């Protein structure tokens, strides 16, 4: 053991002290960075007994990170779904406000009831017309809201796909820096932090699984196993140019050539938006279409002549394809946006109010569709029939996620409102749960890998002490050298 060696060791200690201090200051400055992991300087004793910094290591908790990524995408997915359902639920509103299509059908029935008690009264017939117009307007706006929610989802998917693409580009860049840096033995901890940050952002967009491979390389897979990134980013194709067709799923998202149609499996915001676009709004839209068809069928006019030969025709409620009735037992896509009150009863369009009472709305030129043949002002038969028809059993398409055996269009409308609120309620519960899980998982990961400022401050104090000791050692060795040299002189 020589004095020079002690000198060297002290010098090495100073150098490693400086590096350790820089690691501590990096940690402190990263204190507010949610994606940063705590870094530790790796001290190694060399053959001569001195220390040097072999490298800087990141605190790693792969399992917790994986869990955080997974729960983040589940939470983002359910958030998108809950947001869309919240928006759509304005169609139903609070039952107390009675603004749902079902409540408006009820109001229409009330107006019919008033008119049936005083069929001669044009004010009462005016009331029927007004409530019928309210009802069609509410169906039209419900259909418009559903369609616009759907279009908004489509636009958001397009935007999210763009984000995903640029995130993958960043990921690819950072990942290759890490792989090269690791091969060269550089400190790549900051890049790993960045890569984790990008991974968390990607998991917000779409559900992912990561796989760590040799050389610090990471591959990303979608939940269904499709490769998203492996050495290089895979192609993501989304054709947003074609317009959405009512009643049909929108254009598919293709990753690496594989179509991703099931939003619930895909996860993340994109998955949630796909569910909004291809499930929720489609189902709700078809229910609204069936309600519209139910109303047209309930208000249909039948041939009243002694030997009926004419087909049933659309009466008070009609649509752009009238006076023929829409195809029975199937969803006519877009019917809810086409339903309207027949012009033949609207005085401002040259119609006659009394046709509501007398019939003959579908074809005023054809007397065989008139119910009140003698034009008696006290005729209430047709009005009562309309009241009954609103809750008379009707067959509805089976593809609309709800089924109504009895109770007709009124029951369909109430069931549809219940379905929507049920979706929202369960979606909201799932979302709350997912949010809590995601917060917990993320905070569990952060707790494990994140920086504790007190800890770092303590480390800094320890470093200060060891720096003082090292300098004292150097000065002592120096004094020894001085003593030795003066003895030699």
């Amino acid at each position, binding site marked *: 053991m020589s004095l020079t060696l002690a000198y060297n060791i002290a010098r090495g200690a100073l150098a490693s002290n400086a590096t350790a201090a820089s690691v501590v200051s990096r940690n402190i400055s990263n204190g507010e960075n*949610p994606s940063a992991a705590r870094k*530790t300087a790796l001290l190694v004793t060399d053959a001569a007994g001195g220390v040097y910094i072999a490298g800087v290591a990141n605190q790693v908790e792969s399992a917790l990170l994986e869990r955080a990524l997974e729960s983040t995408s589940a939470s983002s997915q359910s958030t998108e779904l809950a947001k869309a359902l919240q928006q759509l639920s304005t169609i*139903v509103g609070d039952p107390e406000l009675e603004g749902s299509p079902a409540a408006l059908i009820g109001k229409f029935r009330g107006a019919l009831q008033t008119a049936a008690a005083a*069929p001669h009264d044009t004010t009462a017939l005016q009331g029927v017309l007004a409530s019928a117009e309210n009802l069609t307007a509410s169906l039209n706006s419900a259909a418009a809201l559903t369609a616009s929610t759907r279009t908004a989802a489509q636009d958001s998917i397009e935007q999210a796909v763009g984000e995903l693409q640029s995130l993958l580009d960043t990921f690819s860049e950072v990942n290759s820096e890490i792989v090269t840096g690791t091969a060269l033995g550089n400190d790549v901890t900051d890049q790993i932090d960045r890569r984790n940050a990008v991974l968390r952002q990607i998991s917000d967009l779409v559900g992912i699984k990561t796989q760590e491979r040799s050389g610090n390389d990471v591959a990303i897979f979608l939940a269904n196993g499709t490769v998203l990134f492996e050495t290089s980013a895979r192609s993501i194709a989304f054709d947003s140019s074609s317009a959405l067709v009512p009643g049909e799923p929108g254009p598919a998202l293709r990753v690496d050539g594989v179509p991703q149609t099931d939003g619930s499996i895909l996860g993340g915001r994109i998955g949630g938006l796909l569910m909004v676009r291809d499930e929720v709004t489609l189902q709700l839209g078809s229910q609204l279409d069936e309600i519209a068809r139910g109303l047209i069928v309930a208000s249909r006019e039948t041939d009243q002549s002694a030997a009926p030969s004419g087909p049933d025709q659309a009466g008070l409620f009609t649509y752009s394809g009238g006076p023929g009735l829409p195809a029975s037992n199937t969803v006519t896509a877009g019917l809810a946006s086409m339903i309207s009150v027949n012009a033949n009863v609207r005085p401002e369009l040259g119609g006659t109010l009394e046709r509501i009472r007398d019939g003959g709305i579908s074809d005023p030129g054809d007397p065989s569709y008139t119910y009140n043949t003698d034009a*008696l002002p006290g005729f209430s038969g047709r009005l*009562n029939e309309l009241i009954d028809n609103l809750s008379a059993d009707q067959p509805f398409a089976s593809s609309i996620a709800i089924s109504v055996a009895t109770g007709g269009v009124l029951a369909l409308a109430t069931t549809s409102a219940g379905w929507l609120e049920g979706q929202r*309620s369960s979606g909201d519960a799932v979302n709350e749960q997912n949010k809590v899980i995601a917060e917990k998982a993320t*905070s569990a990961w952060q707790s494990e890998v994140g920086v504790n400022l007190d800890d770092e*401050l303590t480390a800094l104090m320890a470093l200060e002490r060891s720096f003082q000791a090292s300098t004292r050692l150097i000065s002592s060795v120096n004094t020894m050298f001085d003593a030795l040299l003066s003895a030699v002189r």
Partner: protein
Amino acid sequence: MTSSTISSLALWDASRILMSRTQSQLGAASQEVTTGRHYDVGIALGTDTSRAIDARLVIDDMDSIETMNGVASQRLSTMQSSLSGMLDLARSLFTEATQVVQSGVDRELFIDSARSKLATLTSLISATNNGTYLLSGTNTLSAPVSDYLADPPPAARSAVISAFTSEFGIAPDDPAVADLTADQVKTYLNGTYATLFETPNWQSTFSSASDASTELRIAPQEYTSYSVSANDPGIRKLYSALVAVVDAGANGMNADAFGQLASLVAGSAGAAAADLAQSQASLGAVQNRLTNANGRMQIERGLLNTVVGELEGVDQAEASTRLNSLTTQLQVSYAVTARMFKLSLLEYL
């Protein structure tokens, strides 16, 4: 060395998340306490929302039916009082006619009384409510009968007079009426004259009321109908009896023929009274059903209101307890957060 530490960021985040969650729950709870209903009914009820909507629909339906039942029962009672008026007329006509037969009361007086009764009957038949004629069947906007005694005489009166003229070859006010025998008068009144008041002559000559029955929806699933109108047999018989006194030459008849006419009129009036009572009974049955339906709906509505309250309402005691505990929780977490932020080594270096 790896030490087990907790990230400062995660530590602080935890209290931030807790606070924001508590605050949003606090907002919901305070609204529930003030309104007594769920903060978000749709979320709270889920698919049960359809039950709430359905119950409200039925309540609304019953509300409007009850309002309209009120209107209908007003109409029905006005009709009842009209019919009672007619019944009184029929009874007094019966009494007078029998007195004429038995004791030969002043003929002029009898005829004048019949004229005034005819005017009363016309006004009773033309009873209105809310701008509609009650006894017009469904032809509610036209008066069921025109004023028989108006000047110039309406088509109905001309038809009666021409029937008399074509039967006997003389007008009712011709002095030759005195030559008519009791048998001739009987044949005329039971034959040609009676036919005038039968379907379809009555409808084409006298009445513009329609025979169609009026249908009433008196409960969500319950209909009833009534078809009491000016075409009812009782009204027709009374009308024909009165017209026979006025326009069958009663004034100039010999005593024998007049006695025959009076006894026929008495018979008609008696039959009319029986028929009118029948009509009153059938209207009464409808009124009864209406009252029953209203009673039932009231009970049902009460139950449904309870259902709506149970579905949409919150237990206010529970909500206010929740509000209190949330407030306490929030205060605690404020205090804890403030302390935690002070807990930094920096404060002690």
